[in-house]
């Protein structure tokens, strides 16, 4: 079945009141549309070349390296600086000031002068400056335990213990990957017309992909220095089981709230993909088999997923039961029914947990690259274009929108202190977003505009005394304090998935739900919340390395391969 043979209206998109809930967004999984997978598909289909142009790292692991990738038109270079970090300075907090390795993604081929300039700035991160020839700035810390184990094993001529590799999953974890103009780097707007950056976060994903290659080269280099002639390299299949870890905290949580049109485009693409698959009248035996294989591989991926966070533990346990239920349901011939995907999804809506439903949505897309892989180019957003307020809108129309699209917010009892127990603010210490207790800490005066539910209710209240025909331009001249939320409401009216339909300042809000939603679109898996406020993930685990891209078949690489299973 091809896209042009499909009747797009056969199955409606899921409504925002179903999709845009924090509990569901906090249960999203990576999919074909995820930005890491979009990147690797492009690198392979366009046959990008990779070369290590410099690797000037000494026996202590200190120095720099340059990894360049050449696309059809342009080249990009990861400039990596490796440092000798005393253990007491190793911190994943954003307020850290030193790291095991620091990186910049350079637009083109850096000269010696560029590398000299970067060597004086990139290791300082926030305390340094880069220029518009740099696309990203990043840093990473070692997983000391696994890093030392791998160097030690390889230097003795042995492979590391696979169980230890899997229990951590990475040799280094990034603690920030800055793009889009941070620290003086190129604005996204200046590069977004390049095809390789049409989908969101491609420069950031390319950075992490190249970092992963560098880190594995680094560990093998240090082993060879230590072991002299005895050292070996990692066995390729085991090598691929290393990803790049990532620690993400509150700083990233407001992102989806601050980019409503972008959020809309991400969710809409995913919902469109789901609707296209559900609209298929039948499944070929090849597609059914591809799905079953991905389901088994998906099961392995879940079996490898460990977390000590009580909430996530119970979600994983429930997800495993979901996959048992799904397998049993498929055994009854579910894929042979008419409109089988639609029927399967409808069954899942009542039979599976949110984690199970959303994993199924991702897996259902797997056999259908030809049907959904066009969607990621629609996931970017020109948010400047949606910025202007329609001042000619009447108060009556604005009230209608609020009553329809924000009924969930107007229905909250805002007089109950628990409804706004939290407040988002920025701390003077490190200029990072924080979530405070409105009644216990002196933060309300500094509140960021990250409570659209409450602000929509306040706007609705303010409109009560207005004449229906009044234009919002006149209202805003008198009541400028509602300008932010009014703009947002108008955006939400044009973009159905722009607004998260939950209270973001209630006593029970969990920032990890916002983090999980965003990171799932990146393509992360094995979400491991360490509290309600920060989460560890793994990126590019099981992916091919740059030198393997051309010759390797890696569709569905996120899911562990099944090579141990007899055919």
């Amino acid at each position: 079945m091809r896209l042009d043979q499909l009747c797009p209206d056969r199955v409606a998109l899921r409504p925002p009141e179903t999709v845009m809930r924090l509990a569901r967004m906090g249960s999203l999984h990576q999919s074909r549309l995820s930005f890491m997978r979009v990147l690797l598909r492009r690198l392979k289909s366009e046959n990008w070349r990779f070369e290590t142009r410099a690797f000037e790292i000494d026996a202590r692991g200190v120095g720099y390296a340059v990894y360049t990738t050449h696309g059809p038109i342009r080249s990009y270079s990861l400039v990596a600086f490796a440092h000798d970090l005393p253990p007491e300075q190793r911190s994943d907090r954003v307020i850290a000031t030193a790291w095991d390795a620091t990186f910049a993604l350079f637009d083109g081929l850096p000269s010696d002068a560029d590398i000299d300039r970067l060597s004086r700035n990139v290791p300082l991160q926030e305390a340094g400056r880069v220029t518009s020839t740099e696309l990203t700035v990043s840093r990473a810390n070692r997983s000391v335990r696994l890093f030392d184990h791998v160097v030690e094993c390889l230097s003795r001529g042995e492979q590391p213990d696979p169980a230890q590799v899997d229990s951590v999953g990475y040799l280094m974890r990034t603690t920030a990957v800055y793009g889009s103009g941070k620290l003086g780097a190129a604005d996204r707007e200046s590069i977004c017309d390049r095809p390789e950056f049409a989908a969101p976060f491609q420069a950031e994903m390319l950075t992490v992909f190249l970092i992963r290659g560098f880190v594995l080269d680094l560990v093998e280099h240090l082993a060879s220095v230590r072991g002299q002639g005895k050292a070996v390299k990692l066995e390729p299949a085991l090598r691929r089981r290393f990803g790049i870890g990532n620690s993400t905290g509150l700083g990233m949580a407001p992102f989806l709230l601050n980019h409503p049109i972008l959020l809309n485009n991400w969710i809409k693409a995913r919902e469109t993909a789901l609707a296209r698959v559900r609209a298929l009248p039948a499944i070929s035996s090849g597609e059914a088999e591809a799905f079953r294989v991905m389901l088994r591989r998906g099961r392995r991926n879940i079996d490898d997923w460990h977390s000590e966070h009580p909430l996530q533990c119970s979600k994983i346990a429930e997800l495993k039961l979901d996959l048992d239920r799904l397998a049993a349901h498929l055994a009854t011939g579910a894929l042979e029914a008419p409109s089988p995907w639609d029927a399967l999804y409808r069954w899942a809506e009542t039979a599976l947990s949110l984690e199970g439903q959303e994993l199924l949505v991702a897996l259902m897309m797997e056999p259908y690259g030809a049907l959904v892989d066009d969607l990621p180019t629609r996931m970017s957003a020109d948010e400047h274009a949606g910025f202007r307020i329609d001042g000619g809108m009447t108060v009556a129309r604005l009230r209608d929108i609020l009553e329809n699209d924000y009924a969930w917010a107007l229905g909250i009892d805002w007089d109950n202190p628990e409804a706004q127990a939290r407040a988002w603010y920025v701390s003077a210490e490190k200029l990072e977003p924080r979530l405070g207790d409105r009644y216990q800490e002196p933060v309300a005066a500094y509140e960021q505009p990250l409570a659209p539910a409450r602000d929509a209710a306040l706007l609705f209240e303010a409109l009560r005394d207005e004449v229906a025909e009044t234009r919002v331009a006149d209202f805003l001249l008198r009541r400028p304090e509602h300008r932010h939320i009014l703009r947002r409401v108008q955006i939400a009216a044009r973009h159905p998935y722009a607004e998260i339909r939950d209270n973001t300042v209630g006593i029970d809000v969990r920032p990890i739900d916002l983090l999980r939603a965003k990171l799932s679109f990146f393509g992360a898996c094995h979400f491991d919340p360490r509290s309600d406020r920060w989460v560890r993930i793994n990126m590019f685990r099981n992916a091919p390395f740059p030198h393997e891209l051309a010759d390797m078949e890696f569709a569905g690489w996120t899911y562990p391969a099944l090579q141990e299973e007899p055919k």
Partner: protein
Amino acid sequence: MICSLNEIEALARKAARGGGMSWGLAEETGKAVRWLSDNGLPGPWLLAELLRQNDGKPYSDLAPQQSGRIWAARRGPLCPIIAGALICDQAEDLHAEAVLRLGEVAVPLLLVPFASEASRAAGVSFALKWRGMSFFLDGGPPRMYGEEAALLVAKAGPVELTSTGECVLGAAWPSSGRHVTAETSRLLEHFALRTYAPATEASRAGAGAGQEGD
């Protein structure tokens, strides 16, 4: 220091908020300053001047009064952000014969991004004039001609926005709009600082990743 446009927009938004604007107007400020910098004009410097002038003044003193043919503030010069946002909000009223007269305006160059956006939205070309300085705006890059001495004035009036059919050949401003001096940066940071809450032990706890060496 050469800044990215995203840095300029973010700093301008925070500074405007710290200077007392509502979040919605602070967002307008961020976009306006960004537009100026993108077009070679010293957006951050202009904003620093505006925030210095308006520091502590209530909104009601700075906004256009709704009576009268000429937009004027109740006391002192109009705030170009408030007036500019209103021009954009009323863009659909701006037709081919439109004339908008404003009294004295603080840092009138800050009106230009709004007039440009209104031009784009209304599909009408505008001339924006004050004290011998004219901007020709058709939604594309701005063209200017006239008295350059009036470009960066701290206040001017009257200011006139008229629709125009003529295409004017003017110059672009020759400087780098992304260069932000240490002094401008310090002034804007001073205002931005007012939006940050003092850190407490409670705010640090559980905010981000810990010191785990696994």
